[in-house]
């Protein structure tokens, strides 16, 4: 908000002598994670521009990995420096919060992205074309699918190494999103990580029609929802006269403060406040994929290149829920009694709808999409606890969930047949007989989704439900467990398919991945098990990080 604030003060002090405009005070050190990532992204663009084609892949990969690792290190540094707890404060002149939740979520996002980048860089799965190993991205996104240009591009062995900087941009946005401390920053961050994602969706090497369609849908609906978000922001601004979280919260807290009667129509007008809040919430709910704003999820998850889907499913949820938490806990706590019941409703239909619709899915990626919707519902249950337990449980759940998702989609990339990935469930029949290991790993992820004890899924579920129950929403918990019982059904279905049904003759083959994907999956399994068996350390972490700075 630097600029806004300064200009504002200028306006007020127009009378006295113009002169020294005080430069904004930015704590670069504390913003370092974001800055590192975005800087790397810019570098990446330059690399694309100036490096010869053959050396780009490795450079980009190295660059992004180093950047993300460095950013993560920075986050750790900040956390160690106590910015998560004692020294938590609002940086960049009120634009960005540096506090526990922000750092925890940024850390999670960075780790997830790091792992995701591995899957992006995977080049062993697709059969080598013309002697060159290729990844799962289009040779030349601009070329018409099946057209002459594309064939040439393929023959020339082009690859879209741009994905790396694009991902970095997205990550940058995601880092800001949960830390945004005023509505404008929120909006900008949203766009900054959405636009790259739209692009990433179009880049699939196989089934490009689906890929492009997914992008279109995602883009249109995303833009549509962000328009609502923006309008909501406008209304809130109209209500409070400011867009800083603290400012709005203040106004909300002590209701209509005395202002000149001319503005009585707007200032402190609850209608503005409520409608605005609702619209902003809608914008965020769209991103987390809560019913009824979830339509994009299945289509986009299915159409997008699987590594992108994994990244999106994991990282976007983390970022969006972070923003949602901050909004509800920092901006609108005074409004609790208004939004809680509404959000309860949203949580319930999200849990139920997600679980129920998933039962009849036939495509593994769509199945996971719906399961992610159901999980959004579970997380909402934690969000609504409006207690520190609620925050910490959500943080923990997000961490646990994102790695499971990433791992699951990584496994999906392995199961392939002539037409690329074999995502239709019928193709997965008897996978357990063909390659028990892969099937077993996938089963672990599914069980984690289902929330079977001794997996991270169970710990997370228990945490959020516990928080909900303690906040007095016991019936929400009951509905939650019921819908997870329904959800269990389709996870089990997949396991049955993999282990108990005879393998088909023309079944898919399981490609042997490079160390990159292997690492990704391994990390996924490790996190799933560790957080399932010995979650205490991470619960503590989330616990310490569960205080928002105001």
């Amino acid at each position, binding site marked *: 908000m630097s600029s806004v604030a300064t200009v504002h003060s200028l306006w007020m002090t127009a009378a006295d002598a113009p002169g020294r405009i005080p430069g904004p005070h930015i704590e670069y050190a504390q913003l370092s994670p974001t800055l590192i990532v975005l800087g790397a992204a810019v570098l990446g663009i330059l690399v694309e521009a100036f490096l010869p084609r053959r050396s780009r892949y490795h450079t980009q990969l190295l660059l992004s990995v180093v950047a993300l690792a460095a950013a993560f290190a920075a986050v750790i540094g900040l956390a160690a420096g106590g910015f998560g707890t004692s020294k938590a404060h609002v940086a960049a002149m009120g634009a960005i919060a540096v506090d526990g939740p922000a750092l925890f979520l940024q850390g999670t996002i960075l780790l997830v992205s790091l792992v995701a980048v591995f899957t992006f860089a995977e080049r062993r799965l697709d059969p080598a074309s013309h002697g060159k190993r290729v990844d799962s991205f289009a040779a030349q996104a601009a070329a018409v699918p099946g057209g002459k240009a594309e064939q040439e591009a393929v023959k020339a062995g082009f690859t879209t190494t741009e994905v790396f900087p694009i991902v970095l941009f997205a990550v940058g946005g995601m880092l800001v999103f949960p830390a945004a401390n005023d509505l404008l920053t929120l909006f900008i961050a949203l766009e900054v990580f959405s636009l790259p994602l739209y692009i990433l969706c179009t880049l699939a090497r196989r089934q490009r029609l689906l890929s492009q369609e997914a992008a*279109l*849908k995602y883009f*249109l*609906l995303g833009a*549509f*929802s962000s328009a*609502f978000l923006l309008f909501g922001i406008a209304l809130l601004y109209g209500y409070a006269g400011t867009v800083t979280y603290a400012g709005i919260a203040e106004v909300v807290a002590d209701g209509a403060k005395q202002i000149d009667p001319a503005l009585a129509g707007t200032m402190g007008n*609850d*209608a503005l406040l*409520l*409608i605005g*809040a*609702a*619209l902003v*919430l*809608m914008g965020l709910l*769209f991103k987390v994929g809560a*019913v*009824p*704003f979830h*339509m*994009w999820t*299945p*289509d986009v998850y299915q159409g997008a290149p699987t590594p992108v889907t994994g990244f999106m499913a994991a990282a976007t949820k983390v970022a969006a829920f972070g923003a949602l938490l901050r909004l509800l806990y920092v901006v609108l706590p005074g409004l609790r*009694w*208004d*939004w809680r*019941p*509404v959000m309860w*409703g*949203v949580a319930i239909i999200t849990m139920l*709808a997600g679980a*129920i*619709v*998933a*039962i*009849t*899915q036939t495509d593994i990626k769509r199945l996971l999409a719906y399961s992610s919707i159901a999980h959004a519902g579970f997380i909402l249950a934690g969000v609504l606890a409006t207690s520190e337990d609620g925050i910490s449980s959500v943080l923990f759940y997000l961490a646990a969930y994102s790695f499971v998702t990433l791992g699951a989609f990584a496994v999906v990339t392995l199961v392939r047949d002539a037409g690329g990935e074999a995502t239709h469930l019928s193709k997965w029949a008897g996978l357990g007989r063909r390659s028990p290991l892969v099937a077993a790993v996938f089963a672990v992820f599914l069980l984690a989704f289902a929330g079977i004890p001794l997996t991270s899924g169970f710990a997370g579920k228990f945490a959020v439900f516990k928080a909900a129950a303690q906040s007095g929403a016991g019936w929400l918990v009951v509905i939650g467990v019921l819908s997870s019982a*329904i959800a269990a*059904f389709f996870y089990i279905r997949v396991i049955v398919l993999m282990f108990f049904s005879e393998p088909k003759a023309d079944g898919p083959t399981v490609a042997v991945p490079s160390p990159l994907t292997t690492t990704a999956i391994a990390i996924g399994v490790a996190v799933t098990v560790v957080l399932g068996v010995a979650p205490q350390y991470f619960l503590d972490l989330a616990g310490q990080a569960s205080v928002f700075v105001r």
Partner: protein
Amino acid sequence: MENLIALLVAAPLVGAALLLCGGKRLDRAGHWIGTLLAVASFAVAAVLFADMLGKSAGDRALHQHLFSWIPVGGFRADLAFQLDQLSMTFVLLITGVGSLIHIYSIGYMEHDERRRRFFGYLNLFLAAMLLLVLADNYLLLYVGWEGVGLASYLLIGFWQHKPSAATAAKKAFLVNRVGDVGLSIAIMLMFTTFGTFAFGPVLAATGDTGEGKLTAIGLMLLLAACGKSAQVPLQSWLGDAMEGPTPVSALIHAATMVTAGVYLITRSGAIFNAAPDAQMAVVVVGAVTLLFGAIVGCAKDDIKKALAGSTMSQIGYMILAAGLGPIGYAFAIMHLVTHGFFKAGLFLGAGSVMHGMNDEVDMRRYGGLRRYMPVTFITFGLGYLAIIGFPGLSGFFSKDKIIEAAFAKGGTEGWILGGAALLGAAITAFYMTRVMLMTFFGEKRWDPQEVHPHESPKTMTIPMIVLAVGSVFAGGLFSINDAFVSWLEPVTSFEHGHSPLSATATTTATIVVLLVGAGLAWLMYGRKPVPAVAPRGSLLTRAARRDLLQDDFNHVVLVRGGEHLTRTLVYLDHSLVDGAVNGTAATMGGLSGRLRQLQSGFVRSYAVQMLGGAAVLVAATLLMRGV
């Protein structure tokens, strides 16, 4: 001395274990081992008996406590034996007759390749039966009670390859189980009433509790007795039980096991004495059964089934006597013992006949056999005379006493019961004479080409002779200055009944009816030849051939009804209980199918839904505030 008691049970038990687990290598010596152990048990019994006679009537009861069996809370069941005069009587009967029948079986089962197992089962039976009569508490008695049930199941179904045998065995066990439920409920009642179910305390405490409870206990005990002793209404199994080898019929279904009911009632005398209603029920059951059995006995052409009917009826006498209370207990037991002798003898005789007639059981295919198997004829004849109560033989003394006691019940009841008993005596005479005539007299109705009747080997005849001797003299011995009564008196207590008729009157009446019955039989089967195929006969006859339709009743009501019930339940379990579960799953599937239609694939419909959602969201938020 009391430490020997366990030995009584142990000997046959060891035998059973040896023979059943021993495997083929014991096939040769198996039957000898079995017999030896049975005899050993008898020897021990004899020793104990001698010792007991040496003591004064007061302290003859012995007691042996092995270990605490089931201790849970206030529930204390011990594995402990008690040997008093009553038990002693039974022990002698069981081991004695048992040993004889073991010996008999050696010959009888000679050609059966599973003889070893047969003897194993016999030993098992002895052990269980002895446990039953030696137990010092009802729960242990229950063990023996079901044990003999198992043994009889195994032995009835010994020729398992015959479906009829297997079915009969199953039937016997099931009907017995119904009775056993009665016993177990009785035990539970005792536990809740007295806090224990050991004979001593329970029987001592009958005074301190309400008659209602006691009546309930008594009726439950009666139910048990009915099951085991084939009394109406649970008598249906005994006839079919004749599917078993004849020695089995002799030992289990004539001499010992079926009399367990009488033992139970006599043993629980104190309870019944304090519960007149229960007593009355006992008497009625006894009277009804003694007529029922007798009538059935008249109509059967299968020699064993005829004898089975007679058994039923004779036990009816005992139960009747036991129901009369202190005036009857002793006579009940006495008749039980004498009956043990002659009925066993009769069965063995029948067995010997069948042995000689290649297992033909239809009396209409017999005739004039006295010439071919004299020993059998004589022993059987003596048994016959005994059972019809021919003056001077065992049956006369015991049965006569019971009839007298029945009259002594007093009032109209007395007359009715006495009359029934007399009638029973007459019918007994009739059907036994019938059996006698059809088997040993008249012209031969068998084909000399196929069957060559011959006398049985020594192993079979000797036991028959011994039993015959018993059935001749036992009654007389017992009645010498009421030896038997005074022997049992300390246990069962005895009162002299005051019959409206004088003893002599009763006796003469008995003899008269006896002669009438026998004469009638001679008129029907002695004078004119017996048709080789049964005539259609009167309605009653036909009913009697079918056990007075009692089986048909069971079949229609219980079996059919049960089948329908189970079939319905199986159906409901599938369609209703399970259907509910699968139903929910199906519903979910359907719901899911309908919901996913919303995902139409058109961006604009998504947008519409989002807008709608937004609208709802806003509306709801405003509603919450009530703006």
